[in-house]
């Protein structure tokens, strides 16, 4: 049990680097990440609808606005800042090449969800992409170019 106001130690690996932080048990993972400077992960709706906060937790995509930081204890997190390996990831390239972003606010979450989707299904059809991505909202692009980008990235073999 944790008393009110008490903090809890959380050990996580973010983009390959270990962090040990004392956090309030009610702190959301998205705020935990953003306060550490990983501001690529955005808060868009606070209710796990829009997906702007999508990150990978032990390889699975989660909406980090609906996960507590303490739930990530002992786990590995990958954020938008961590997929590029020093250069842009094929998905990041494909988003840019296909005009798959406009204001860019949904883009990190969109790319992280697409990253997770392609890991599970490396050659998705348009319908499978739509089905796998409908938890991420974009207000600017109308989505067609995002589908195109994901499809194109799926053809790039690292």
């Amino acid at each position: 049990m944790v008393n009110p106001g008490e903090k809890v130690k959380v050990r996580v690996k973010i983009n390959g680097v270990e962090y040990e932080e004392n956090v309030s048990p009610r702190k959301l993972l998205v705020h935990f990440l953003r306060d550490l400077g990983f501001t690529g992960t955005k808060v868009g709706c606070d209710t796990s609808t829009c997906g702007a906060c999508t990150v990978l937790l032990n390889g699975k995509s989660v909406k980090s606005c609906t996960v507590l930081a303490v739930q990530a204890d002992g786990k590995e997190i990958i954020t938008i800042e961590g997929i590029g390996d020093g250069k842009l990831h094929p998905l990041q390239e494909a988003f840019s090449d296909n005009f798959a972003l406009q204001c860019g606010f949904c883009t990190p979450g969109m790319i992280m969800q697409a990253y997770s989707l392609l890991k599970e299904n490396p050659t998705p059809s348009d319908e499978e992409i739509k089905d796998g991505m409908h938890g991420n909202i974009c207000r600017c692009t109308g989505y067609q170019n995002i589908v195109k980008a994901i499809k194109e990235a799926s053809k790039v073999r690292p």
Partner: protein
Amino acid sequence: MNYVGKPVKRINDKKFVAGKSQYVDDIQVSALHAGFVRSPYAHARIRSIDFSDALKTKGIVAVFTGKDLNPMLKGGPGPWVTYIDTKDWRYVPRNALAEEPRYVGDPVAIVLGIDRYSVADAIDKVNVDYEELPAVTKMEDALSEKVLVYKELGTNVGYRKNFTSGNIEEAFKGADKVIPVEAFNTRLIPSPMEPRGIVARYEGGSLTVWYSTQIPHFAREEFSKDFGIPSSRIRVIMPDVGGAFGSKAHFTSEDLAVVASSIKLGRAVRWTATRSEEMISSNARHNSFKGEVAVKNDGTLVGIRGDLLIDLGAYLTYTEGLQPAIIPLMVPGPYRVKNIHITSTAVYTNTPPITMYRGASRPEATFIIERIMSTVADELHMDDLELREKNLVRADEMPYKNPFGLTYDTGDYLSFMREAKEKLKYQEMKRWAEEERRKGRLVGIGTAFYLEISAFGPWEYGEVRVDEMGGVTVITGGTPHGQGTDTGIAQVVAEELQVDISKINVVWGDTQVVASGMGTYGSRTISIAGSAVKIASSQVLEKMKRVAARMLKADVEEVSYSSGEFTHRDGRKVSWDDVAREAYAGKDPGLYSSVTLEGDVTFPYGLHLAVVEIEDTGIAKVKEYRACDDIGKVINPALAEAQIHGGAMQGVGQALYEEAKIDENGQLGVSYAEYFVPTMVESPTYVSYFAENPFQSKYATGTKGVGEAALIVGPAAIVRAIEDAVGKRFNKTPIPPEEIYKAMLDRKS
């Protein structure tokens, strides 16, 4: 070095895809967090506010109410006087915090603390003793004046004006047929993905504001006016802005309260809206038109008369004043109808305030006139487009002065219509839908034509600097926030200067860097801001020619320029970089030019076609969306198409899904569980064409603008497609599944 007309990749994408973008909430400034205590009533008087418990909460620094902050204001936001005549309006300027809250969610106190969690705790501990007052939440009820939103105004009517042209009585007397028409757009929520936010830092008499806005220079003016700080001491910085669609061109109470708190405490204060807070910050549309049209049996439209009613919400925002004044002017659209009488009335209600939203008055006007055209086509048993062709303004009438004095600059609507029908495969699609319906599929085709007024002046600022290394910095008063106009502007400058686009950096959105500016809205940026920098570029290039002539010891007339090289008649050359360096080494140093370009509106137009399919349950889906537009010269077809895609998606939302629902107590549905922004599953396939031989505007870029086109015309095309599928009339947006289902049942019986 040809860039114009090519699908050049967006020049600033890298930071966005890499997660290095910086929106206002990403700005690392040591600041207090602000949160708001909000009225649970649509209308109330505050007897008292007790925040003693809130102040005892760990991490809380201060709590302020209207009594603390409102006296600091020397004014308060009213309408945008650049475009709105205050004489036409009855309004009360907005305060920092409400002392008589007028909608559910109206902020009554600001809580300031060291982190967002303690602020949330403290908000719950603020005790407000309210006396609930009668509220009016429906605009139709507001007209009866039984309950007043503002006692001090003595009326709920903020605006009422008659728009009259020609001879309406004669027109109706001489008509073969008079047809009643109705058009209704429900309340929407623009809902950009980045909720609005602000960081204000007041220090030593200077105010710095990081602000998710479309209009940083107007914000500087507003804060200077409201707080009495010299504008030269105010710096407004627009970081990356995560979408706006017109909704971030107004000043909220929360913004004022944050700035006031920063001044009062002498500390930086930040506020980022939650999604729910974003949803009550800016609502949109909500208007109805009821009237009748006079027609000849051959389809000639001779008169339109009716009443336009527009909801303002609880406050007159910076931008909502545009709608009641512009909608009537654009009702005639691209058609020759001359006799019009419209009474435009805008009323206050105890609901969240309404602002402009992508298209701002042209979607409303287009919905009205296109509903009229479709209804008349049905009543006269004419083809939709044949009827429109009958009424379109002829090419030999251009420039055409519309009944309310707007001058349609360039275009040939009729020959464009022929081109568009072909490209969109109108006849084929109609036949296809009929065949499919015979086979039992509920599919429909709908088209609508639009004429848009865009590229509003009165002016825009542009500056071009070539530095000693030959790098080009472009400074624009435009404020791109997702459209990609920074890339379009770079293309225009790269083409003008004949330099590689990688040499160019486009800068905007900082009042301390950009001398002046209006901003990005109304599909104006590539036209007016693009033209300003195009002219500035040519001026810089003229000076570079003079420097090159000096280097070549020649007259400037003997020097020509192309692709990075200044060449003398005799063949000697100096390079761009050498000239740039010399320009800072010799006499008359410096390579800069700034232009404040005046300009006036232009009129793009287009035909869009929607294909819908309806399930047995009444759920409709837009399968395909086809667009053909004459937007003047196209600078970047990929960016222009992207605007069509995004606008069309919002059009699908408006036509089928999006409805800001307000219950009888005035409570708005404030999450994405209640307000359905379309997801990828609802997205259609888009096909976008631009006119082969476009009619250019008078702007130096020749462009007309494309940012709003598809949301202007999309809803009308989609509603028509639903009618085609179901065989019943729908006069409103959105059309929810239950209404379609009911119509399907009615039709069967």
